[in-house]
């Protein structure tokens, strides 16, 4: 008996997308309405997920190809809410570039639909379907400012490299299918004979594909260019939302069918993690464009998330989920600042444009200061706790090398965060920026700053939420 009630949120989202598309075609100048309706759709979907499925103990649907459990519901809600904030703070930016079109919210909704399918997938085919849906929407989003050369270049680059990685991923899927006779995670787990080392090839190919999606080193090459070229609001989307879905698939894929092969994939994850942390820290030092810098910093942060996954324990998964949640909050604040750097209808994104910000805009620079110190992982800000949980779970498994390299790379990373602070606080001021920001932008900046600043007062809440994730 198929229980449609449980996938009602996905169905609702899919139907709304079609409805909005039709509305956009038939009604002229409807971009504002569609933007608002999309926001409502995102909220309703998350409420639906919260009501229908939140807290349910593992339910399988459609021949076990879709799984609904605490992890999936939690990650879906995080995805939807982050997409909500991306959409709500990007409208002014899009209007400035005259690309405030109906396609933008609809594309975001479609990619979100792809992501929540990915999050729920318990089957290689379903997972691939979700992945492609979100990727296709993302290619278009990257080129959304199509009059700009950089944006088109970003989209094309993303498309070509992403197609390549999808190819690798599919090849991995077919290898696994060949050896186990099924694409379903549970069946694979049952069929698994740990002596079949050839399966490792399948795992490696799939890991490569996934590592590409979350831009882990050495599959990160696309990230700086795409992040720099895409419109800022889309970059914000890239840095946060697809990572949530890919992370969930990472967890599900490694921990459900292949937990017994942990000796095989743990090394790969440790390598990806160390390489990302170190590379993200070192390569960001020379950057002068803020969006590029954020790209490298996000590569570094992905390294920490992978460190949590590499542990092979529930605590590790929980710490990764906590990390990505805090990371999203920090990123939201950071990009809100970026979207506020506007003067005479032009957005500034070079690191030197922040020069002397503290004198002209004391509150904005104070928020940015808090966010940057938090990204650097300095206590007592939220970013420190995120790292603390990760390293706590890493050290539980006595992975000292990973922990020490990770912590040393935070010191290197601190350098470039400090450099931004130096430019804001120690350098001479330049012209003022506009201050007529939308209420939502101000809200998202102040909310994220306050959350980061005051997280230390009661850190237990987030742990409590994460501690109910139970995969193994």
């Amino acid at each position: 008996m198929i229980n449609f009630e449980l996938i009602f949120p996905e169905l609702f989202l899919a139907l709304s997308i079609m409805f909005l598309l039709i509305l956009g075609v038939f009604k002229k100048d409807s971009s504002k309405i569609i933007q608002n309706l999309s926001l409502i759709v995102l909220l309703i979907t998350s409420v639906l997920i919260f009501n229908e499925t939140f807290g349910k103990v593992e339910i399988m649907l459609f021949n076990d190809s879709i799984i609904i459990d605490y992890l999936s519901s939690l990650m879906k809600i995080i995805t939807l809410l982050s997409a909500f904030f991306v959409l709500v703070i990007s409208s002014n930016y899009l209007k400035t570039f005259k690309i405030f079109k109906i396609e933008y919210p609809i594309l975001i909704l479609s990619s979100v639909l792809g992501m929540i399918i990915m999050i729920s997938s318990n089957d290689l085919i379903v997972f691939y379907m979700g992945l492609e849906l979100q990727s296709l929407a993302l290619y278009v989003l990257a080129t959304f400012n199509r009059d700009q050369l950089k944006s088109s270049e970003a989209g094309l680059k993303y498309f070509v490299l992403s197609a390549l990685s999808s190819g690798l991923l599919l090849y991995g899927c077919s290898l696994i299918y060949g050896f186990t006779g099924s694409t379903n995670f549970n069946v694979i787990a049952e069929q698994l004979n740990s002596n079949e080392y050839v399966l490792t090839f399948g795992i490696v190919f799939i890991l490569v594909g996934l590592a590409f999606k979350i831009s882990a080193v050495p599959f990160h090459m696309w990230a700086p260019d795409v992040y720099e070229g895409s419109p800022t609001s889309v970059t914000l989307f890239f840095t946060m939302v697809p990572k949530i879905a890919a992370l969930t698939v990472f967890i599900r894929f490694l921990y459900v069918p292949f937990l017994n092969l942990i000796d095989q994939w743990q090394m790969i994850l440790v390598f990806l993690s160390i390489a990302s942390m170190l590379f993200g820290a070192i390569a960001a030092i020379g950057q002068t464009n803020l969006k590029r810098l954020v790209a490298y910093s996000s590569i570094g942060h992905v390294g920490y998330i992978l460190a949590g996954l590499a542990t092979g324990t529930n605590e590790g998964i929980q710490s990764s989920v906590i990390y990505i949640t805090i990371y999203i909050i920090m990123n939201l604040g950071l990009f809100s600042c970026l979207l506020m750097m506007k003067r005479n209808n032009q957005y500034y994104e070079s690191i030197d444009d922040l020069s002397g910000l503290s004198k002209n805009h004391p509150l904005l620079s104070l928020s940015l200061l808090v966010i940057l110190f938090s990204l650097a992982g300095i206590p007592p800000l939220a970013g420190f706790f995120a790292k603390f949980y990760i390293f706590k779970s890493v050290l539980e498994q006595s992975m000292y090398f990973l922990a020490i390299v990770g912590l040393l790379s935070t010191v290197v990373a601190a350098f470039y965060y400090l450099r931004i602070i130096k430019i804001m606080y120690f350098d001479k001021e330049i012209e003022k920026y506009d201050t007529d920001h939308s209420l939502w932008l101000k809200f998202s900046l102040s909310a994220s700053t306050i959350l980061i600043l005051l997280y230390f007062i009661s850190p237990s809440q987030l742990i409590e939420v994460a501690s109910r994730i139970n995969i193994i």
Partner: protein
Amino acid sequence: MNFPILSSLILLPSIGALFLLFIRSEKGNQKTIKYVSLFTSLVNFFLSIYLWILFDHETSAFQFVEERVWIEDLINYKVGVDGISILFILLTTFITPLCIISVNNSIKNRLAEFLIAVLIMESFMIGVFCSLDLVVFYLFFEAGLIPMFLIIGIWGGSRRVYSAFKFFLYTLLGSVLMLVAIISIYWINGTTDIVKLYEIGIDVKYQNLLWLAFFSSFAVKTPMWPVHTWLPDAHVEAPTAGSVLLAAILLKMAGYGFIRFSLGLFPVASEIFTPLIYTLSVIAIIFTSLIALMQEDMKKLIAYSSVAHMGFVTLGIFTIQQQGIEGSIIQMISHGLVSAALFLSVGVVYDRMHSRLISTYGGLVNIIPKYSVLFMIFVLASLGLPGTSGFIGEFLILMGTFKDNFLVAVVASVGVILGAAYILWLYKRVIFGKIINSELRQMVDLNKSELLILSCLAFPILFFGFYPDPLINTIEVSISDLITMYNINLTNN
């Protein structure tokens, strides 16, 4: 008594800082800003005096303990004081108001922000000295980097950016290994509560590595030779109040950490590594004293003298003798007062002449006599003349060292002579001699606030020099119990 006095001490300055955040930084508000911050820090000072009065000298158990669950099954917010930590809290609350008064003369722009940074710094520093949980300690220990970075970077001298970065990255690099060690302790012993860890003890096979991890952090912060190079840079470029905070309090965090954690948690490793500490301390004493002799910049000279004095402190701590550790704590308190006073004294002439070079000055005794007298007191305290607090500390440390290792004590004593040499030579070149630079004649003597600050510092220096009993009474029992515990742990393993 249920009043959470320690948490109030930690929180009060931050609340003051929050209040400052909402005062608009206009010209007319400068006075309000100063008074608010001064008031906050003075209330904190009196609160800490009250704490000292209530403090029970007869026991080494932690007092005024507050414990609250912070992260379920992981960290408890736990604070408390014993004889070792209470003096550092007093030092912090005593120095901060003086820093705030001193901004009258030295800080010209962004006053509100500066005072916010100083007050938040005070919160963190008090937190370091009274936290009884390793994670809480680490939190406060690291958090202090943020305000100090800004103080050096925004209000510092010409090479402030370089110095601020060097300070931040050096100390951060030292500390991350400590974080690994703290989390490892959690997994080894199941708790990070210091009181419980004292009781359980840490398995001998882990002690050496953990000790080294803590050492890497404390050695940078102390600073010990050869990782002391950030200190002269940071001191020279920081504004006067920043140098005072750095020298008087920040450096003491590490000395305190050595006593509380290295000795308390890892006795076996401490015993093994004592020769290392002795060597580094003796090198620091001799080597940096010689460097100090060569300095042309007054602030740099005092910065190097700080390294040398902290060399005595680490030497005293690892004698594991009653006198040695008592001497170290008194030396730290005394150095806190004296180095603060010396930096403020340099600040006084710098504010007038905008030069820190020794060669600019000469013959000041004829122009500004009041200043010269006070400066002399501090110089004599720095070289450890009997009758000043500096003497008590150095004397006790050397006494402890003689008991433990004759050779080291002899070499360290040479350091005392060198210490006298560089500081007296500084005094001679600045204060005596002929007035070569005619611009100096326009200098005015101390104004009211400067006189107030410097005499406030001179008083305890002389008072505790003649009558150190209040200090020794406070720390005596805690230290003798610490040493007993140390020896018991040593024989058991």
